[in-house]
């Protein structure tokens, strides 16, 4: 009966081959497919709807834990403070009519640019705002999550 021996001379060959295969496999599997543009668009529209409905559960899924939300008046909210402002009624989005102008996806990061007509009730006073916005989304945990929001009031907006 013949026994095949692994001689020391084969060891480098085996190590090099395993290393190469590991790198190849790692590259293939580490790159999780990013979310689609359709999914992102749907997430954006669902987020606007969740704002109007003060839907904390939906916003919990759609907003990144590291969210930095800068309102058009310069006020800054985190994810927690933003959701809290809606659920307590401190900020009340009566309606939002959003128009998405561009969507760009760079791997796991996406940028949406658009405009929105927002009616917000703040301290009992209703205001109609027309804003231009850009928001940044991340593909995390197999879903799109918004991590940054910046907006500015357009010239025809109320001050």
């Amino acid at each position, binding site marked *: 009966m013949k026994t095949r021996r692994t001689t020391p001379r084969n060891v480098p060959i085996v190590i090099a081959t395993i290393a190469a295969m590991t790198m190849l496999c790692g590259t293939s599997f580490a*790159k999780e497919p990013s979310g689609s543009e359709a999914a992102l668009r749907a997430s954006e529209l669902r987020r606007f709807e969740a704002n109007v409905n003060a839907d904390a559960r939906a916003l919990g899924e759609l907003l990144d834990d590291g969210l930095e939300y800068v309102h058009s008046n310069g006020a800054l909210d985190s994810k927690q403070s933003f959701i809290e402002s809606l659920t307590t009624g401190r900020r009340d989005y009566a309606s939002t009519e959003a128009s998405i102008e561009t969507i760009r996806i760079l791997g796991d990061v996406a940028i949406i640019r658009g405009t929105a007509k927002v009616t917000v009730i703040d301290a009992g006073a209703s205001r109609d705002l027309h804003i*231009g916005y850009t928001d*940044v989304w991340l593909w995390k945990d197999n879903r799109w999550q918004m*991590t940054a929001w*910046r907006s500015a009031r357009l010239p025809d907006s109320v001050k």
Partner: protein
Amino acid sequence: MNRLLPLVALLLAGPLAAAPRGDAASARAAILDRFTAALHADVASLERLLADDLEYCSFRGTCQTKRQYIGEVQSGVLKYQSIDPSVERVKLFADSAVVLGRVTVTATRAGVERTVSLMYAGVLAWRDDRWQMTTWTSTIVEPAVDPQSK
């Protein structure tokens, strides 16, 4: 055949392992370099630091292309007097980075000087072995010092 395996392995693994990616420090540096280039109207540096598909959305809510933005800086329609930036967070991904921070800018646009404090978000894409800014967006966070309103 076995003797060729290491060579084959290296040929396969080499390009994958060697491809350097931008890190958080270089993303931070790229954003700061971009401010410096804008301040000095350094068009050559802006060309290198800004992506061809740049969307430059100002605190006014309107957006410009790379060509439009550089054109304004180059022609002097937009002239920066001072830029005082800070980088607060860098979120790094495989080929992109999100940079969040604050900046106080004094600039003259069409002859009107204005100072604004902004919170910004910049998105960088790693292309051609360097970071290129592909999105800029900002919101005014403090009352502007506007000589016209005094």
